[in-house]
């Protein structure tokens, strides 16, 4: 990134334009290529190769037939799109649509809840008051806990003689099939990930200059109007990044329902759990097919989200940085928050891809 910035600035120092710049750029380009190739090689090994081999795997099946003597027939056969069509037919189809519905339902409800709570948390954290550091730190604790650990923690709370039932004074069997298990997953996930949205939103909030609010006050805007007209629009880029990451995360949710409620529970079974189930029964072809469908679903949702709401994830990072520098040079204004947000976003994005 700093290389681009340098490139952008240098030409202005050198008036003789075309020829000199060409040779300079070509040299740098080759150097950049050489320097980048290990990175691209690693990316090809850990991203491109697995994706392609998963796609290939989804067209094969193996080890599903038993011969006369009771041995599994060896070798894998090419079955074309059979693994995909099998997913949508008969009992498997019912299971798939159920999991598809669960995945979508979880994503919509959780992300909406987390966004509302997260923004509220950010507003609280943004306020200047005594002990703000402690509040910020404690709000972030759930996000810091590994999902499996927090799932176990909630499993403990939601067990038959656990804290939840003791508080409510009833005996709800949370981990059985039904609305209660869905609710327990939603509660646990919201608890864990609302702080993430809160963190990113807070980063966005801190970039809004106070003068804007002062001006609004002079104009007679009340708190609600300020929130709607100033806070929300200005925090939107940061918030959209956070929401997008949460959507992508929730679409492939696996560990929370798996640990909290358990495997093979229709009420909370998600697409990732189906893929896992197939793979653990050594049906790698169908498992890869499930994973591919989930991959496409996630890709489509992300694309639609970005197109509809204009969450400019990568563009933001590249475009705004030079702008920001220039502006800082021109005026002595505070640097816009785009940098912070884009950095927080890309760090997390890296983690979520892996």
């Amino acid at each position, binding site marked *: 990134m700093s290389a681009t910035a340098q490139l952008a600035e240098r030409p202005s120092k050198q008036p003789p334009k075309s020829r000199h710049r060409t040779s300079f750029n070509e040299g740098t*380009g080759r150097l950049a*290529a050489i320097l*980048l190739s290990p990175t691209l*090689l690693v990316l090809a090994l850990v991203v491109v190769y697995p994706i392609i081999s998963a796609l290939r795997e989804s067209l094969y099946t193996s080890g599903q037939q038993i011969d006369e003597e009771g041995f599994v027939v060896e070798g894998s056969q090419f079955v074309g799109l059979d693994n995909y069509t099998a997913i949508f037919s008969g009992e498997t189809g019912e299971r798939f649509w159920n999991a598809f519905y669960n995945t979508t339902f979880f994503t919509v409800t959780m992300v909406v809840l987390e966004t509302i709570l997260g923004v509220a948390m950010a507003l609280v954290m943004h306020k200047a008051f005594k002990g703000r550091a402690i509040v910020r730190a404690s709000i972030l604790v759930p996000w810091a806990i590994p999902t499996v650990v927090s799932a176990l923690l909630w499993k403990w709370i939601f067990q*038959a003689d656990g804290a939840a039932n003791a508080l409510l004074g009833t005996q709800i*069997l*949370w*981990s059985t099939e039904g609305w209660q298990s869905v609710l327990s997953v939603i509660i646990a996930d919201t608890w864990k990930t609302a702080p993430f949205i809160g963190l990113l939103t807070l980063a966005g909030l801190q970039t809004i200059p106070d003068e804007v609010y002062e001006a609004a006050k002079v104009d007679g805007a009340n708190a609600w109007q300020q929130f709607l007209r100033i806070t929300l629009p200005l925090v939107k880029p940061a918030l959209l990044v956070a929401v997008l990451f949460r959507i992508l995360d929730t679409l492939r949710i696996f560990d929370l329902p798996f640990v909290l409620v358990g495997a093979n529970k229709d009420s909370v079974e998600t697409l990732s759990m189906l893929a896992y189930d197939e793979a653990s029964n*050594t049906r790698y072809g169908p498992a890869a097919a499930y994973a591919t469908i989930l991959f496409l679903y996630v890709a489509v949702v992300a694309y639609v989200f970005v197109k509809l709401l204009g969450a400019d994830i990568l563009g933001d990072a590249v475009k705004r940085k030079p702008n920001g520098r220039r502006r800082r040079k021109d005026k002595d204004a505070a640097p816009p928050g785009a940098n912070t947000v884009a950095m927080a976003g890309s760090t997390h994005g890296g983690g979520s891809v892996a």
Partner: protein
Amino acid sequence: MRFERSHTRRAAFVAVASSLALLATACGGDDGSGGGDGGSTGGGALEGRGPITFATGKDTSGNLTNQVAAWNAQHPDEKVEIKELPESADGQRQQMVQNAQAKSDAFSVLNLDVVWTAEFAANRWVTPLPEDQFPDLGKLLPSTVDTGKYRDKLYAVPVTSDGGLLYYRKDLLDKAGVQPPKTWEEMVAACQKVKALPEGKTIGCYSGQFEKYEGLTVNFSEAINGAGGVVVGDDGKPNVDTPEALAGLTALAEGFKSGFIPKAAITYKEEEGRRAFQEGNLLFHRNWPYVYALAGKTDGSSKIAGKFAVAPLPGLKGAGVSTLGGHNYAISEFAKNKATAADFIKFMSSEERQKANIEKTSQAPTWASLYDDPALNKQFPYLAPLKASIESAKSRPKVVKYGDVTTAIQEAAYGALSGTTPPKDALSQLQTKLSSLITQ
């Protein structure tokens, strides 16, 4: 700006091209070594001596290192290295399957759960064992030896076993003046009598493991077998849509409906049930022998220390049938030094080693003679009922697709116990499902 972009594109092209070239070389090297490995494995006879590895689940007892150290002291040239796999059974199986699919010789001896034998044997992941090389098999409990066989061929040797026991509150039964029950009906009657006592008013009657997981398959099978039914018959065909099976499953479902089994039991695995029993909330509890030591602890963790005893599982109208647990040792098809591996298995399954093991860990042995050992009986008073339990125990279905079969069983049983499917429908659906899964 435009110029800059084109230069970026060219740079990207160069980078990708050079990466691909590197990638190709890397892959080439990989393939070569893979091919070499494939050629050297194979064989099948139990040949070769030298150091081997032993893949086993996490050793929670801490005694495994002692056992292996005893071997290593006697065989300095054929040392055994323990490869500890995850604690959960699923995790262990996954690693062993992956190892087998890579045809790796990293694991020589595999510590298999009894239900995995069919899958590993049918996939040729484990070596068939000549029975004449294991002369002690006849002295082991026959039901345990059976778990090591697939289609009447031996693939694994049983080293530990496990059977279900009925834990009961001896103090309350004595007070109510009833004998430990031998049948389900006696158990229901006994509970009613205890409930009439002032101290038995709030106690739950019975629980096993009814959460939707492997334990439910175990408990379902026990209910079916204890009522005279079968899940998979001796001919290898599923046969659950029978009056006997229906009677067994109905008893459990009715138990939930009438409150004989507390509602919360639908969420119980081994540990939840054990806690409820230890808290004094259950009169009868079906669990494995490991509970005996924990429930008898006098450090305050158990409220019923000294107040409970064990009996063989009750059946619906007669003696019960336990589902067999335990672990078998097998040799990986892709291992080197199979002769050493076979000797190691013989060593670990020997009477001497098993005795040393039960003394330290209370894991159930497979040698019949050990259950009659007076000293051991003194240390573990549950050995006599446990022997009865294991002797009459049945293994879970020996099928290649065990993972799918157990999921189907759990689905049917869970539906029936939670009251969403009538037992009859659950069983007929299960029969259809199992018939399509078990095509042998």
